[in-house]
């Protein structure tokens, strides 16, 4: 498997706070990589840096050999990098179908594609996430779970090579969360993107990911298979605190 994303010594500061400190990792094509860490560890900051919403203060990001460090978000999307948001951000005044059509039109360039062609393609993504019957409903009228699915459809419609998923389970009840996780797994099987998956719930990410990267206080503390990472002393300490053995 070739290297799809390479992050080298990336640092991000917000005033005096170092949110991401000299982080380096790489993702190979076709992998599902979990990205974990306690609250405030810097996970979402890393996703924002990768997708171009925040500018890196130091370091380099490369995608498939192309330096994307200074690229704008829309350029990264056209290169094949797409994301979902921790709190769904739909286009409230657009219907579900129109939201996905925009992604089809603006994502990867398709030759000879009219607006109507894009609509037909968008329905496939809506059908995949189970929102076909809600295609003409305004996004603001959808439930939280449906918004999550709409986000996934919107991200998939840009035909990403690398899909950044930011806490797909946040705000969902257990049954919905299970369906959401199954959907991500099915999306990978059907559309084949490489997945970089931020998640809070350890049990889910351990099952779904082939490799896990853990960070704490903006620094990388572990990178390895799920078994290696969940047994890593630094990761346990990050989640349970330094004196966890005394209370175990």
């Amino acid at each position: 498997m070739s290297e799809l994303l390479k992050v080298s010594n990336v640092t991000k500061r917000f005033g005096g706070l170092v949110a991401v400190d000299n982080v380096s990792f790489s993702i190979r094509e076709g992998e599902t990589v979990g990205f974990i860490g306690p609250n405030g560890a810097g996970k979402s900051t890393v996703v924002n840096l990768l997708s171009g919403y925040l500018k890196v203060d130091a370091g380099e990001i490369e995608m498939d050999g192309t330096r994307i460090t200074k690229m704008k978000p829309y350029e990264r999307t056209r290169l094949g990098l797409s994301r979902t948001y921790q709190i769904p951000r739909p286009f409230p005044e657009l219907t579900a179908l129109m939201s996905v059509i925009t992604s089809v039109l603006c994502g990867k360039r398709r030759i000879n594609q009219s607006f109507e062609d894009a609509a037909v393609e968008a329905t496939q993504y809506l059908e995949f996430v189970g929102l076909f019957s809600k295609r003409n409903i305004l996004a603001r009228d959808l439930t939280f779970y449906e918004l999550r699915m709409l986000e996934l459809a919107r991200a998939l419609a840009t035909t990403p090579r690398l899909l950044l998923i930011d806490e797909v389970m946040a705000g969902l009840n257990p049954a919905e969360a299970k369906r959401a996780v199954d959907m991500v797994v099915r999306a990978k099987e059907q559309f084949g993107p490489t997945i970089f998956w931020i998640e809070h719930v350890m049990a889910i990410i351990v099952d779904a990911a082939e490799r896990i990267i853990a960070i704490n206080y903006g620094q990388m503390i572990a990178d390895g298979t799920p078994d290696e990472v969940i047994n890593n002393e630094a990761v346990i300490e990050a989640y349970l605190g330094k004196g966890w053995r005394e209370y175990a």
Partner: protein
Amino acid sequence: MVDIEIKRDRIVIRYKGKKWDWMIEPRYWRNAIVWTCVLFVFPLVAYFVSPGLINTMVTANIYAAIAIPLSLMTVGTGRINFGPNFYVGVGGYTAALLSIYCGWGPLTTLPFAVILSVFAAVIFSPLVIVARGLYYVLLTLLLPLVFLEVTFIYTGIFKGDVGLFGVDLLVQFENVKLNFIMAAYISAGIMLLYLLIVNKVLKSRYGLIMATVNDDEEVAHGIGVNINKVKILSFVCAAGMIGVMGWFLAHYFGTFAGITYLPLTFMLKILLVFMVGGRAQVFGCVAGGYFIAFLEMILIRTMGQFQPVAFPIILLILLFVLPSGEGLFGIYRKRHYREYLPTIHVRR
């Protein structure tokens, strides 16, 4: 090369790997044809019934033709421009100055009015990227007022206090009423052309992309929309279209005075057309334009000196009563979704 294919219900146009469909089904165009006929019959009827109505119609067309590009600008930039009359001023002064000092006719001054308006818009286009919210409102509000001051400071050129006289008229027949009818048709033609263009743009892929910028710029950026390009293009194109109305005003009246079009009163009328008709609804702009122009005329005829008080009171009441943000057009469409584009039904 452009490849055109005519099908039963649509014309398919292909150019450089892109494809556009243009619906030609008669039922798709029925309402448009009916209302266009009404617009073109109205001046003829007014000619025999009450010629003064033709002038009101021209005013309504002007209001609508400024509000329509303003709608495009609002959707495309995601911000409401409070100084659309600045571009009326730029277009109007360009046409008037060229006509007076160079002796040029309306057709010769038109391209220069457009170019100058577009040029001014390009200069001020960074505003749509750097400013938002109250800052954008204040900056755009200031532009026409600063321009008005400039016309007073350089009164030798702009004749700020009295305005420029002696601009070539748009049409010059011996019968004055015929001149008015021709002006009504020209203004209606411009308004309908704007309606056609802007409606087509808003219903196309570009309109949808603009709608995403209007809804959430950051997310639009994230799904591959070059938001700066969209915002600047819609700002500049709309400004050029508004500039044409300045050109029309200068050549319609044969005079152009910044004091008439640059102060807040004219700008407020345009914004009221925009709000009463329906915010960022192109068809609502026409309804709003006609409503405001005819309401103003009726109040002047019936209330005389109380008109300046009654006019804003009625409009304020309307703004409260009409469906929020949807205006008169919203009443017409209140049973439908507020989507920017017609619903596409896909059969399974």
